[in-house]
């Protein structure tokens, strides 16, 4: 069983599925010879040839729109958008076509495609390279939005995304692409796309996060444990459709909830989680639901990006306040 980083797991999942399913094709900018700017598609072209793994012209709407066409022909495109900051030109094709093809044709044509993109901040990148606008996609009916937070989950969730008969936006937390390695059995086992992962059981408070922010969230949980606060930590993982049951059960148990996300606060996915609890779990609440998140500002250029991203200290402070409420 090999040790893999998250990016290696992404690569392994694509490689595995291309090996067992001829209909899988990989496309995007620099995914061929170069193996992707983060090496997510490293070696795939050598393994599977230039027709199945191919560089596109520099055009994101094309990448997404042609994937819709490939999928309509029964192929399973796994397209890379080089950074989430460049996905917006493809948004029209996602919301008008990828998400609706099945519905518009009453199931006659479908859109089993994956749109992968590295996302999130914290790597001192240039402008537009640190976006976390997953909420925008989570509002689009007809697609799935998935964000892994560990190598094993990246492997299993990406396999599931490729096999899923509907379009999936798969956002990869690039800050932790190489942060940790773990054993991943490259055995083709997919994970479910409709449940959260409870990473840590706890009884005092529910911490919900996803992507790279789980790093700080887990660290905060450790710090809180030292203070005698027993936090449950949930990795949302499948942002859309959302697994309400796991969230509501956890909050029913703990009575408290803090949501940690690096996205801009207003209208983020954290708002939806909060609204679900306020609508269906209000009576279980012992304290306000607090969002520890990015600000309602542009992600600043990198000199100040640490001041934008939620810190362990901020999470601990927020939880402490909620506990004292």
């Amino acid at each position, binding site marked *: 069983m090999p040790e893999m980083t998250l990016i290696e797991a992404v690569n392994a999942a694509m490689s595995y599925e291309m090996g067992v399913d001829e209909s899988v094709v990989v496309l995007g900018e620099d995914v061929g010879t170069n193996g992707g700017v983060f090496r997510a598609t490293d070696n795939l072209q050598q393994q599977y040839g230039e027709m199945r793994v191919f560089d596109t012209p520099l055009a994101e*709407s*094309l990448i997404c*729109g042609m994937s819709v066409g*490939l999928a309509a022909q029964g192929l399973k495109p796994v397209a890379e958008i080089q950074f989430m900051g460049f996905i917006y030109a493809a948004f029209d*094709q996602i919301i008008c076509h990828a998400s609706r093809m099945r519905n518009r044709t009453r199931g006659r044509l479908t859109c089993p495609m994956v749109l992968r993109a590295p996302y999130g901040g914290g790597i001192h990148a240039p402008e537009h390279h640190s976006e976390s606008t997953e909420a925008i996609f989570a509002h689009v*009916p007809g697609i799935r939005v998935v964000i892994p937070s560990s190598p094993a989950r990246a492997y299993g969730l990406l396999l599931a995304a490729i096999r899923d008969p509907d379009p999936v936006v798969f956002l990869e937390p690039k800050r932790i692409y190489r942060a940790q390695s773990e054993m991943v059995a490259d055995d083709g086992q997919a994970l479910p796309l409709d449940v959260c992962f409870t990473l840590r059981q706890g009884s005092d408070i529910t911490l919900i996060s996803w992507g790279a922010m789980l790093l700080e969230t887990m660290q905060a949980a450790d710090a809180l444990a030292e203070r005698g606060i027993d936090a449950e930590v949930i990795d949302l993982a499948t942002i859309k*459709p959302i697994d309400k049951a796991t969230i509501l059960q956890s909050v029913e148990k703990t009575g408290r909830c803090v949501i940690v996300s690096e996205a801009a606060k207003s209208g983020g996915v954290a708002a939806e989680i909060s609204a679900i609890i306020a609508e269906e779990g209000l009576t279980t609440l012992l304290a306000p639901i607090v969002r520890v998140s990015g600000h309602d500002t542009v992600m600043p250029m990198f000199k100040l990006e640490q001041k934008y991203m939620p810190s362990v200290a901020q999470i601990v402070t927020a939880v402490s306040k909620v506990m004292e409420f």
Partner: protein
Amino acid sequence: METVAKFDISYSQSLNVSAQLNISLEQLAARGINHEDLIEFYRTMLLVRIFDTKAIALQRTGRIGTYASCLGQEAISTAIGNTMAAEDVFIPGYRDAATLILRGTKMEELLLYWGGDSRGMNFSINTQDLPYNVPIASQCCHSIGIGYAFKLRQQPRVAVVVCGDGGTSEGDFYESLNAAGTWNLPIVFVVINNQWAISVPRSKQSGCKTLAQKAIAGGFKGEQVDGNDIIGCHLKLQQAIDSARAGNGPHLIEAICYRLGDHTTADDASRYRDAAELEQAWKEEPVARLKTFLVENQLITEQQLESIQQQCSEAVEASVEKYLATETEAVSSIFEHMYQEMPAGLRQQLAQLETQ
């Protein structure tokens, strides 16, 4: 200074405004168009014209919603349908009734669509064709994926995608041209230049002399054809499709015609369009032109004309009846086909709606 590339754009026409054909019937037959084909061309164009008239009437009486007629575009749309092979894939806009009907789409399916029922796009015959497409030019990108799939599988199939003169201004149109040229894909782009994009005339849409020259930016050939001349359209399309099928890559055809009607039933073209221009356009329109040719050359009898007219009317009426007899879908259909399996959240929302 040295010239490193040269391009030219040609215009072709077979049946001119005065219904004169510039090639002999024998030559035409050699190129695959027989006497019966000519009559079938006429039948399809007439059918669509009757269908259009009926659809507008249905809209006026509240039995379908907004409708986009293809009045004036019957020739190019019919030519596309006739030159495509069954195994090819058609990627329409929203004004392509003639092509879709020839591809196998039933008229009642079209009416369902315009009547606000997505079952209309669940084509029962041409199951691989894409549904109508409303966001202008976005369908061009789909054609790239489809053409790429053909190439990947080494299938001798062709994708034919249409858009309007207005559509040529969208980024998606051009990204697609460029991609088609890059990969030498089996795609025929047909720009149906009906001179208007709602109220915006062709002259304000682009400073280009021709829209055919847009293909130069994709690195392949573009040419103009008289879009009111079904014979010229047919011949040009056949060439382009054969060439694409043979592996010679993409082709763009600009079919020059005229939108004889309002943009849709929600539009009033008299606000922005000269009556004189419209009057002139009626003199060039495709159905009368072919009819004149057939009559003047004794290729059709008065009796045949009448019986075609009647058959078409009956076919349209029959489809209208089927459409009107179709029951509205159940509320649950809103939730179906969002995903292959309905997620828990949607099941909850559906249950809520059904108990209200």
